[in-house]
């Protein structure tokens, strides 16, 4: 994905140059273009613009160089998965204490709904004795590799704004996503693949394409969906009747003509376009090669729980994520939009856990065995949690933003560790709260990026992923 930078990237340097140029001119000293060229060089610029996706050094030595985000959209219930509350079980069916609800706003339910005890048993696993739900035996089995955060907090209580907040650090649309910031900060090391890849299972997400967009950054920093059906990359397949040889001959002709134009016109964008077409040709083989799991041993497929490698599934996406990370892709993000359990909680939790547990754990183990886990950040979680109060009947939970759970692993995170705690109802955080902004600051930190320094100017303001918030959570870091 090589391309020349947009004017945006050159803007600061250009602005400096203009001010300096003016300075010379109004000093009454005749200067010619050479002075400008000298300045250009001093400013570290050359006439041919730098590649905006070229790998860049972070602010300081990183713990991790790539990210796999397993986004459980729709908001999984922490009370059924990671945060066991015996007291809630005991008081199931009674009203929550009044002081708990002061100033509280639920999305759907009347806050004065009765409490609903956890629907599943929990058990301890690993040397760390991490307590996880019976629904997650595989994640339980990697207890000593992961760090569970039980004190996540967010500001939004409706899905789309909360997903956007989780992914872009703002409830307002139009900001760059975490993956876009990561590419902007670190560039891409993938030769024949995009630097930020998105894989979706279940259904589309509430936040839609804005969850992985580039916001006000150049579009080439945005996430590129790799699709489980049809063309993995949009328009990858040649039109009917055009074989690979015809494509090669077409591109040879196209490139030759574009080179002639480049010689005549001298616009570096033409060179960039030639490269883009060449890259598109390489993608036509690299993307199908990536998606083709026939070379994966059966043991690997079994470990991920992939029954049919040709069928799209969360499990297949997890294995694809490993293959992408191996190929140098900087940021891989899985979206599994399935967790919005206002009703039918028991059945849907069972199904979603069955769809995601084994593969999520397998990915961590696989990365570990391949020596990739140490410098890969792994995150697993949704946009908020669920209420300890029931919704409708006795088999549903509403949205809850004051406390929820996530787990993270690899890349410098503590392993076999639980961070933070909630009260007896899983309602409020009572120890070490971690806001979305804090998590994002910490993730950037582990990538070697200072969240205060990773800024992009837009409309005169230096924007950050963490806006004006965020603290690196040292307690999460090994």
């Amino acid at each position, binding site marked *: 994905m090589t391309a020349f930078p947009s*004017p945006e990237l050159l803007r600061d340097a250009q602005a400096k140059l203009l001010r300096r140029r003016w300075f010379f001119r109004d000093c009454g000293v005749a200067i010619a273009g050479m002075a400008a060229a000298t300045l250009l060089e001093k400013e570290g610029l050359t006439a041919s613009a730098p590649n905006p996706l070229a790998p860049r050094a972070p602010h300081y030595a990183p713990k991790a160089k790539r990210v796999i985000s397993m986004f459980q959209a729709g908001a999984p219930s922490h009370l059924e998965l990671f945060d066991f509350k015996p007291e809630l079980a005991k008081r199931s069916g009674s009203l929550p204490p009044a002081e708990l609800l002061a100033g509280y706003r639920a999305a759907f339910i009347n806050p004065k709904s009765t409490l609903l005890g956890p629907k599943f048993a929990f058990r301890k696993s690993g040397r760390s004795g991490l307590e996880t739900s019976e629904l997650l035996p595989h994640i339980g089995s990697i207890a000593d590799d992961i760090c569970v955060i039980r004190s996540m907090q967010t500001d939004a209580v409706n899905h789309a704004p909360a997903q956007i907040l989780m992914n872009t650090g703002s409830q307002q649309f139009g900001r760059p996503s975490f993956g876009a910031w990561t590419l902007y900060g670190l560039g891409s090391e993938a030769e024949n693949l995009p630097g930020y890849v998105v894989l979706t299972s279940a259904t589309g997400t509430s936040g839609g394409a804005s969850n992985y967009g580039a916001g006000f950054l150049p579009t080439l920093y945005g996430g590129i969906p790799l699709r489980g059906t049809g063309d993995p990359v949009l328009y990858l397949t040649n039109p009917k009747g055009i074989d690979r040889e*015809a494509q090669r001959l077409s591109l040879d002709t196209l490139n030759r003509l574009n080179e002639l134009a480049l010689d005549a016109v001298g616009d570096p964008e033409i060179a960039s376009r030639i490269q883009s077409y060449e890259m*598109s040709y390489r993608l036509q083989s690299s993307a199908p090669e990536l998606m083709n799991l026939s070379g994966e041993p059966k043991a690997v497929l079994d470990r991920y729980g992939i029954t049919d490698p040709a069928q799209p599934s969360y499990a297949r996406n997890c294995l694809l994520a490993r293959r992408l990370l191996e190929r140098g892709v900087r940021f891989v993000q899985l979206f599994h939009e399935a967790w919005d359990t206002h009703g039918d909680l028991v059945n849907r939790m069972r199904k979603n856990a069955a769809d995601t547990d084994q593969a999520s754990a397998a990915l961590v183990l696989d990365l570990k065995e391949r020596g990739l886990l140490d410098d890969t950040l792994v995150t697993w979680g949704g946009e908020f949690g669920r209420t300890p109060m029931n919704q409708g009947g006795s088999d549903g939970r509403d949205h809850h933003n004051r406390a929820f759970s996530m787990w993270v692993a690899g890349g410098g995170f503590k392993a076999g560790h639980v961070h933070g705690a909630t009260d007896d109802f899983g309602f409020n955080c009572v120890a070490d709260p971690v806001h979305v902004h804090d998590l994002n600051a910490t993730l950037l930190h582990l990538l070697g990026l200072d969240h205060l320094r990773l800024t992009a100017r837009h409309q005169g303001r230096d924007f950050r992923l963490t806006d004006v918030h965020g603290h690196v959570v040292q307690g999460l870091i090994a």
Partner: protein
Amino acid sequence: MHCIRVVATSLVAFVLAGGALPAAEPTPDFEREIQPILAEHCSACHGVDGASRQAGLRLDTRDGALAGGDSGPTAILPGKGAESLVVNRIRSTDPTTVMPPPETQKPLSDVQKALLERWIDAGAPYAPHWAFVSPKQAPVPEVSPPAAHPIDAFVRAKLPAVGLEPSPPADPEILCRRLWLDLVGLPPSADDVAAYLRDGHDATVDTLLASDRYGEKWARHWLDLARYSDTNGYEKDSPREQWAWRDWVIGAINRDLPYDRFVIEQVAGDLLPNATQDQIVATGFLRNSMLNEEGAIIPEEFRMVEMFDRIDCLGKAVLGISAQCAQCHTHKFDPLTHDEYYGLFAFLNNTHEARSSVYTPAQLEQIGSIRARVAEAEAALKASRPTWEAEMNAWAEGVKAGLVSWTALEAIELGSVGGLNHPTQEEERVILTLGMHGPEIFVVTEPKLTGVTALRLEALLHGDLFQFGPGRHGPWALGEVEAFVQRPGSEAWEKVTLVDPSADFSEPESAPPPPADKPNEKRSIGPVANLVDGNHGTWWKADRGPGRRHQPSAAVLRFEKPLDLPAGTKLKIALHWPGTPSLIGATRLSLSTAPSPTAPPIDHACILALAIPAEVRTDADRAAIFEAWRKTVPELKTAEDSIAALYQQWPQAPTTILHLAERDQTHARATRRLDRGNWMQPLETIPPHVPAALHPLPAGAPANRLGFAMWLVSPDSPLAARVAVNRAWQAIFGQGLAEVPDDFGTRSPVPFQRDLLDWLAVSFQERGWSQKHLIREIVTSDTYKQSSRAAPHTLAIDPTNRFLARGPRFRADAEVVRDLALAVSGLVTQRLGGPGVMAPVPQNVLDYNYGGVSWKAAEGPERYRQSVYLHRKRSMPDPLLSAFDAPNGDIACARRLRSNTPLAALAGLNEPVFVEAARALALKTLRDGGVDDETRIRHAFRACTGRLPNGDETATLLAFLDTSRRRIGDGWLDAREVATGSLGTLPALPPGATPQDAAAWTLVARVLLNLDETVSKH
């Protein structure tokens, strides 16, 4: 990369030649050298924002700087740099005292420190920020040779200093294509080029500006800023009808509506005297915000988000300032305080989120005719009955005397069993069901009344409803009303029976068949009795038909036994609608203690009007009383029947529009400053007012949204014309004279060609804010006409063409790229206006929409409409257009950043419409391109790029054509499949051509459509 090496070599040459450095050290220029330092390094702590100001010192104004701060008045001592505290602190080597503090990570360079010191030595002269002072025309520079066009004089005057010379003019054919792409977004045909060569540049400019296509091209730039979309955004992202506004923009640009008027009508067209439907449609501009319909949202929370978006949009589109910062706190570097932000907000806050029908011109005429004939009939009726007024008044007095009093219920709890709804209770106890709403609500009240005999339900008008209601979306129906009582100390709700329903109006009963799975269940629509029959499948409906649909109604339901509802006893009313589309948007519930109340069979509008003292009744109130009265007079039945028949002819509008409507004075909404922009933390009330640093409200302007609109584009505005002129320049040259088109504040660099920008801005205003004039001025300059070829040394000095020593060259906007392919292949369908057209979208994109999507790609000529008419879905940006950087409409976009990616390459090669264009271009070339391959190559190449190919290019293409023919002939490729996409289909061949020709030419055409020169404006 041959070219790059040349560039690098020449760069070295220049470096070796060296640049002389200045010997003297003159006074630094505040605007270009000092202000940027202050804005970047000092303003966050020593700027506009008093709340975050450190040490009591502000440096953004001279008065502030000289007054000093906590350390006394020594911060800046004019003439004495070395003694000034500021210099002392910036030169400090002690990390605890050095400024800016190291933790801000904004250290000053030695050059900057020296500049500041020299500036103070020179007396620390300040100047107001250039963009906040009205533009003035500087004298047009004298250049040699003399330039006839002021643009050329300004541009050329600055070239020698940077070692550049203007480029020669582009070839006429290239220039013709450039002009076409810039003015109408389409390439010229061979005939168009011939006309250009015959008529000349200026005449062609006039022709193109007069074309309908001009508005379609230039609307797109405004649509980006207006975040135009055909869906609501967020999770539901459901379709909205807003294309009438898009067509309004196209029309306004085509008729060259002066820019000030263009803005005024969009911000406040509804408040203009005798506002037309067009002017109301124009206010759809600010309604283009995203609309959250997710279940369980609180509508007010997201109305606030929309309001923030509207300010952001106006900041970017009209004011050219970044207002967003001041949403949460006083701006750090530009003069916009937190209070002033909400002052702007207050101008816009007093609006309804209205939605109305949009009629065609013929329908508007028909409505006018219906109204006239109704008025005639009414006049005739009055003439035939001279005593009508006295009779009516007597009748009205009688009705009034018979009315019982009702106590409107205040909800102590309001919600829905499903939890999906957050109804709200507004002034006059009206319950609104806005947002994403399910079909039931309950209202809990504590009436503190005894002997309650009846419940009245009113369906009322409200500005936030479609056509002002009462239906949320159109005709409404109500299925069932239930009442429950909860006694003190009990948790249980006891159902109470409602009987004897009556209504002001019920439509005649209709009885649809029962549902298939419940063959014995009764279905009935109309009678009010259906409200209390225990069957949710039978409905009360009071639709008075087309022209009379949108008026209030009332039903009265008696309690079987009088109810005592003392303090502590709660009454719960549950309302069940047949479905979301039938919601009543505004409901009021009231109780009466009168014996046996009923709803009189008199239109409720009349009952409401009678409750108003006669002297304050409006025309509408009087009309309602008159209409209700005459319906009671048997002798007037014939006349009334003919009036009713006229209303039945009311036309059905083809579309609707989201627009603004002002709330009436009695329901004006107060604006509160919001702590950190949080809607749940309102602070003090803020009256509408404009920022002190900008121009005042125009004299005599009303203190409302209309006055605000006039202020935005007042002749005194320092920003409006500059921002508009800069936008047009950006569209044509690829970058603005001010490079950040939505931020003219202190953080943005002062434009290199500021005098030119200001000259154009003044000229724009003097010429009546005519965009056509402005564009003509730009594209008739020699600067515009220059060749875009860049000599290596030009490229080295000016890689981004900021100095304009060559013509513009850049990849065209997404819409133009697609329209180009459609045009050169002859597929394009050119037609002005209409609903959005769905482009083909791959199934694997459609499959991943939250909640699914209903999508049917257009077929036939509609499929090839120009891209401005494509249906835009926010959460599923068009995959083709977004590959070429079209924004998705989430927020206002003032500048598209152009990327150059493999995804765009794949789209150009393989996207279905592009492939169809390649096949069509092949056939068109075989038909019209001449008799031999070489002629055809030349013909097709010229259609795509605007010029004839040279020998190398022709040879390259001929070789490819031959190779392709051979591979087809050898059976490697199937001719039919390549030429049509299907093995069994024959292409529609021109005479003499074979399927093999069509296939080989399809491959050639596909290459031609993807040439850099095809997708670029050059």
